[in-house]
């Protein structure tokens, strides 16, 4: 059973009206469990929209979205996925530990279990020292790590990430990428990762999905056959550059059409 399947998905905003915007057209994608998929494309190509379709935050105008063999709304109700946004979106009136506990509270997990799980998650992202801090006391990178801990707190099989490192500086970003890969390997989650950055997409993924400008279509899926686990040296690998070029060319080819 695939972790994720999109079949012939269309997404039109304000359908039938003058403001109708075709965001996605004819999207077909299958993702196997444990993969790390990046969605990359020019601004407005619909990659964030696609992520929201998977998360049942939007409903497609045509086609089907299947998560773990279920419909997207069912998967959402079953809490099959966790989500991380570009903005960490931590609740500023709660301490870090309580922020990580939030999804567990909503799912009616007992207090002692919640606290223990939240602590384990903070340890996973190496922020257990900060459980009593408030979000505003942490840097952007640390807040994102808390957001990741929170997204994984209820152990979803799927992680949806919408440019989570977009607001961070380059060095923090590279460190966070290594962190994410480590967490991915330890938890064996399937990850769908939206990004603007070609090196980021190639470094992190098992496959890179290249999208066209609006209306977004999948132009190419690039297999990233770099060895696992990825290390800092991977970025200096010849194969890495070859793959960067392949992705870059796919993006450019689409834009020139």
């Amino acid at each position, binding site marked *: 059973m695939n972790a994720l399947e999109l079949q012939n998905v269309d997404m039109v905003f304000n359908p039938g009206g003058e403001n109708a915007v075709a965001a996605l057209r004819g999207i077909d994608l299958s993702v196997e469990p444990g993969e790390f998929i990046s969605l990359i494309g020019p601004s407005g190509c619909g990659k964030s929209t696609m992520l929201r379709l998977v998360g049942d*935050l939007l409903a497609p105008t045509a086609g089907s979205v299947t998560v773990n063999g279920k419909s997207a709304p069912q998967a*959402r109700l079953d809490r099959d996925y966790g*989500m991380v*946004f570009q903005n960490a*979106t*931590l609740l500023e*009136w709660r301490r870090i530990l309580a922020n990580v506990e939030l999804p567990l509270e909503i799912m009616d997990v007992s207090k002692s279990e919640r606290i223990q799980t939240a602590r384990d998650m903070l340890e996973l992202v190496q922020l257990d020292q900060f459980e009593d801090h*408030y979000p505003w*006391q942490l840097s952007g990178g640390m807040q994102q790590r808390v957001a990741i801990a929170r997204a994984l707190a209820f152990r979803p099989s799927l992680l949806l990430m919408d440019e989570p490192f977009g607001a961070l500086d380059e060095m923090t970003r590279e460190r966070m990428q290594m962190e994410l890969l480590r967490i991915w390997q330890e938890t064996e989650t399937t990850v769908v990762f939206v990004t603007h950055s070609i090196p980021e997409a190639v470094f992190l993924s098992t496959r890179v999905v290249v999208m066209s400008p609006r209306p977004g279509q999948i132009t190419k899926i690039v297999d990233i056959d770099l060895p696992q686990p990825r290390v800092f040296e991977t970025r200096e690998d010849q194969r890495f550059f070859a793959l960067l070029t392949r992705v870059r060319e796919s993006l450019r080819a689409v834009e020139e059409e």
Partner: protein
Amino acid sequence: MSRRHRSRAVGSFILIVLGMVALWEGYKWMGQTTGGTWPLTDIELPVRTNDRAMPHVWDIVSALFRPATRAAGADLLVVLLLRAAFFTWRSAVIGFAAGSLVGFGLGVLFVRSSLAERGLMPYVVASQTVPVIAIAPILVVWGGRLELPNWVPVAAISAYLAFFPVAINTLRGLRSPAATASELMRSYAASQNQVLWKLQVPAALPFLFPALKIAATTSVIGAIVGELPAGMSEGLGRALLSFASSFSSSPEKLFASVLIAALVGVFFVALVAIAERIAIPPTRRLKEDTTMNVTPRLGNTGA
């Protein structure tokens, strides 16, 4: 507040009070010496400065500690006024509580149902433009017909003035969280009530408390205004009326009553401010930046 911060706050408060006294007395002295005009001009001063229109500050204060009336065994003015103030304040508190609850409830209703908001909001706004002084006698008469105790219509008028700022600001606060925060809650398949109590209400608190401070003052005003036509024997409304009628013989008593009435409002707002300090840590108090409060702000540590 730190000890130094607090003593500085007290110090500046005292300075301001002294400054206002100096302004009052200074204006009086100026008017007496120039004979009622701005110095070096012929332009008349806006307020008369004789002792009848503007009693000296110490006359006003000392009037508080003299008997309120010439009747034998009369209480000191301050005692009479404090008793009246307590009576009025009790109605104001009940009205404040009722009005705030209604206001909060309306805010929740409007955030859940835009249909309700569109339908009811015009009436909510219109309710505030009707002059209270016109409604007060109507409510008092109804209260009498229904044989309710006389503080009930007064509390109703307080509630009437209190609910509006609370409703508007509750709605604004409940809507303040970022779109991503709402998406997050949706991704957790959170129920509407969970979204309300875990996200929207905590986000609304920095908007709610300033509205409660406004409601505190308006409920006191409402209570005093409500007492005026009620023909009530107790309360600040009655006290203000009777001292207004004796203005020509003892003006300082009216000023003293106004002072006490103002202090009631200040006291009430101070209570709300204390509640605010307990409910919201200082980093969250609403400052100039009123964009929603789920964005990260870097603090002192920079790890």
